[in-house]
């Protein structure tokens, strides 16, 4: 595994109000940007900054609230957030039940954060600047 694509992170952080503590200690599985309509609505921005982690490397303490709905892909996406301050904590997807999807901003993402693609470029807005990375209209073709 390349260190750049799968950096090791050692993070102990919290949501904005401190009600939910988050720890993440391990190697990142993957990092990408997503501009699907759902991510735009959830974040209020042009794209989400996704970090996929192994649940075994993650600790969450405090009460969180969950909201599930079908995503653009047809998968069921469940987003968990702090009910006090609304900070996004993590998401899970029925496409990959063994993974936790975090947002780089929630994890105080530093130099280690290196997204390698944009997915759901079909709903990307011109006003939202992007790094020079491959773009895929929906998911990357495999």
């Amino acid at each position, binding site marked *: 595994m390349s260190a750049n694509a799968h950096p090791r992170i050692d993070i102990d952080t919290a*949501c*904005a*109000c401190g009600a939910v503590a988050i720890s993440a200690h391990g190697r990142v599985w993957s990092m990408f940007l997503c501009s699907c309509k*759902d991510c*735009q*609505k*959830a*974040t*209020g*921005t*042009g*794209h*989400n*900054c996704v970090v996929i982690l192994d649940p075994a490397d993650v600790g969450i303490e405090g009460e969180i*609230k969950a*909201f599930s*709905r079908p995503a653009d892909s047809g998968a069921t996406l469940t*987003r*968990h*957030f702090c*009910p*006090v*301050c*609304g*900070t*996004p904590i993590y998401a899970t997807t029925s496409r990959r039940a063994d993974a936790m999807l*975090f*947002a*780089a*901003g*929630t994890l*105080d*993402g*530093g*130099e280690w*954060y*290196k*997204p390698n693609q944009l997915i759901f470029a079909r709903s990307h*807005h*011109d*006003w*939202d*600047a*992007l*790094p020079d990375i491959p773009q895929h209209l929906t998911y990357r073709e495999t």
Partner: protein
Amino acid sequence: MHNHGSCQCGAVTFDIEGDPLRMAQCHCEDCRKATGTGHLSQAFFNKSQVTIHGKTQTYENTADSGATRLRHFCPVCGGRLFSENSRNPDTIGVAVGVLDESSWFKPQAIVFSSQRPAWDVMDPDVPAKP
């Protein structure tokens, strides 16, 4: 200009009449936490221009600027929606990502750019303030 927007689940919708007073993007720690991203993009309107349908949840804290900031999100789906700031009590910020149509969005300033994460690429033509 008329704008409409909603959270993911539709429990909160809103209508906006007229043009924004200003538009900006912010990299402060609060905006990064609130969105989970590198910055928040907002269009600011006079409160009289914005009609909110449904109940939001709010979280109040002290912003990096020293002002009191009230952030609104949907209590059902957690979607990021609005912000208020004690320095501009007549104004409300709308998170641009929840608008049905936002092609008109043209930020005039990037603020707290000293806190911009290296990975968060911004439009170099928008003036950035530290």
